[in-house]
């Protein structure tokens, strides 16, 4: 049976008809056509589907679309400034070569932004632990860890 959900996505109000079983990531990718949010697994391990919901990083493969009723969701498409200027965390990933194939990248960035809000000057250890739920097969994490440290400090400095 179809149900209607209404929420905010990247600052815009949207409504959609979904099935009860529809996942939030399916709503985002297939109905709203915001394909920057990716699906890399089916066990909530890889984190490629991470989005921000009400300011918190969540795995959009692990919740139903209906659970986002009334929520304020931000996807990777909503992170850069409207004129296209990269967010400091995105810029740090570029500068530190924190991405290769780019598939895990949106989830990494969404998680990193949430993490950096609470860790303005994180240690290597803190960053590595915060990446427990985000898998990357290309970079060996080396440059992702560097990028998140630099991005967090840049975010803190720009406050």
């Amino acid at each position, binding site marked *: 049976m179809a149900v209607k959900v209404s929420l905010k996505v990247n600052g815009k109000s949207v409504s959609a008809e979904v*099935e009860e*079983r529809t996942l939030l990531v399916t709503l985002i*990718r*297939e109905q709203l*056509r*915001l*394909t*920057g*949010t*990716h*699906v*890399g*697994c*089916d*066990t909530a*391990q*890889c984190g*490629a589907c991470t989005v921000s919901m009400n300011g918190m990083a969540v795995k959009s493969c692990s919740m139903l679309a209906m659970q986002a009723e009334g929520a304020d969701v931000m*996807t*990777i*498409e909503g*992170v*850069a400034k409207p004129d*296209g200027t*990269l967010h400091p965390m*995105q810029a740090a*990933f*570029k*500068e530190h*070569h924190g*991405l*290769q*194939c*780019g*598939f*895990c*990248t*949106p989830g990494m*960035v969404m998680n990193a932004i949430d993490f950096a809000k609470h860790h303005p000057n994180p240690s*290597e250890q803190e*960053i*590595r*632990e915060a*990446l*427990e739920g*985000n*898998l*990357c*097969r*290309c*970079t*060996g*994490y*080396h*440059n*992702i*860890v560097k990028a998140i440290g630099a991005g967090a400090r840049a975010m803190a400095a720009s406050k």
Partner: protein
Amino acid sequence: MGAPLIGARVERKEDYRFLTGAGQYTDDLELPRQSYAAFVRSPHAHAVIKKINSSKAKNSPGVLAIFTGEDFATAKLGGLPCGWLITDVNGQPMKEPPHPCLAQGKVRYVGDQVVIVVAESIDEARDAAELVKVDYEVLPAVVDGSKATAKGAPQLHEAAPGNTCYVWSIGDKAATDAAFAKAAHVTKLDLVNNRLIPNAIEPRVANGSYSRADDSYTLYVASQNPHVERLLMTAFVMGLPEHKVRVVAGDVGGGFGSKIYLYAEDVAVTWAAKQVNRPVKWTSDRSEAFLTDAHGRDHHTVAELALDKDGKFLGMRVKTTANVGAYLSTFASCVPTILYATLLAGQYKTPVIHCEVTAVFTNTTPVDAYRGAGRPEATYVVERLVETAAREMKIDPAEIRRRNFITAFPYQTPVALMYDIGDYNATMNAAQKLADVSGFSKRKDQSIKNGKLRGLGYAAYIEACGIAPSAVAGALGARAGLFEAGEVRVHPTGSVTVFTGSHSHGQGHETTFAQVVADRLGMPIENVDIVHGDTSKVLFGMGTYGSRSIAVGGTAIVKALDKVIAKGRKIAAHLMEAAESDVVFENGAYKVAGTDKKKTFGEVAFAAYVPHNYPHDKLEPGLNENAFYDPANFTFPAGTYVCEVEVDPETGVVKIEKFTAVDDFGKIINPMIVEGQVHGGLTQGIGQALTEGCQYDASGQLLTGSFMDYCIPRASDVPFYQVDTRETPCTHNPLGVKGCGEAGAIGAPAALMNAITDALGVKDMPMPATPQTVWRTLKNKKAA
């Protein structure tokens, strides 16, 4: 001109789209009138299909069509081909049992495709797939490669008695046996190279469509080599002319080998698209990826090294059983032979080597090239043997390597390859320094004081990349050429679009190749775009694998650039009324030597497309050149890795304290990208040694079928790496490049296991060295 582009850490051109969610991966594409496919797969490792009942499924909401292996047979669709013919020890061709796209009568591994269901939505396709009833008669299964040839073992294929695909050998057996007879010391190891599951984070996707308007097909697919995919699919499976099939591989989220191959699903959706006259998309979920993406490694090897009393290598004897899984995947046959045994000389002057390989079929997922492909297995054999021999003979492990390093080039190994250049002492010395090997004993003392164990291990690896000279590959059984193609299209205003047959799925070709082009043409990198991954745009291509892109693909572009520059010189000579021989091209302009006459590249390009003043009697208008480049030899990246670990004997947890990699990749175009490739390769190699191990139960059920059971390294499993390079430029390509994509995965497992066995004081232990395995190894050692 600004700073030189070759050797510069240029930030990547592709990053903006990936960082903003604007990448276009195959699953992101939704075609008009899109339909969706789900596959019914075998739940058994080995079974006869008695009956398929689809009647309930056909009436399920949204279902458009259901096809079985019988439908594919009626349509005369061929099986999936193997691209490399191995000739066995008796001069007979390897056994190539049929590999049907949908099972015909029998299933041979869990995940084998049985039925394709096409529906209006993915949920409807999956719902209907659950309603398909397949009656199986379950047969006994064999999963362990070392048991596959045993008497009474379940037989997979009529065409392959004893489950044997081939027994193949290389090297002089009599001379090797003679070397062992006079050895002062022999080191012997029984090694398992654990089966791995590649797990690119983007699962495979295939979206096939068909146009009645011109009887043509388009397949959008997550592939590392779209032209090869097209060639295999048209010529060998579907019997279609190539000009009627377009294959597009846009942004691809990692490959590591697993996206080289032509898979059953790719054929099935392409064929089904014509039957339902709608585009058909299949997106693998992670569970399917674990079951059906070609796996890697899975060797069981007995290896021996013969040494004289001074630790000089006299000979090496290797016997390997390679598990190729249930069917031969696209390049499965060459991985444990051509890409493995030819590397057993390593960096050493071992005068005689003999290797025999038995490839066997088992009721497991097909095994094929995974990052490194054969070379990690060879490095593991050589470097575990060398380190063990050093310990047994009480020679410093670095010293024993130095005594045996090849130092004069070119060097003909006893296993077919001819190394063109290298400096193994240079990488060894640099690695020892960077790793502070001299301070190790102090650090070890400290660890012991803290109740911990500490070990240090080396791996001095070599790899053969830049595959391959087509004539050599052909003589060894390749059924394809291994050249690369490139095209440089200069636009009238002087900017450039370059088309390459290489494919980037994380490697950053759009940046590295643009650096090469901009450097040669003396223009800003912003004026160069690289196009790849579409058979309708790129003239031809063999794709990206085996660290071949810059060495082969990059060289093809350089050859095309040479033609562009040469034609431009003719045009410039005409424009400046000078003799062609007096015109030089430098910093983006043609100049008449000894004068101030000058025409910029842009002016020449403009003249080529607006040819009002043009040498029409000698030249065609336009400035667009292509080149095919077939390499003269393989390239031979090499290096030394040093790993230092601390082990907690109470818990068995291994902590990597330091990992140092010094590589010789020849000339480096973009060090930032190269370092990233090394970091990633190292992590996959560390994964093999520390956390990853594919496990089946005795009935052939995959026990490690999700990220919860199969542990690819997390960020907290690995350290910051110390990486550096030394440079001996490749002698036979114009860029002097060798390739860097696989090195880390090749060298890391041996370095890590050498370090762990050093810490534990044991001769060997199996990979992955999980806490439980380490703890048990220590417990067994104490008991002994």
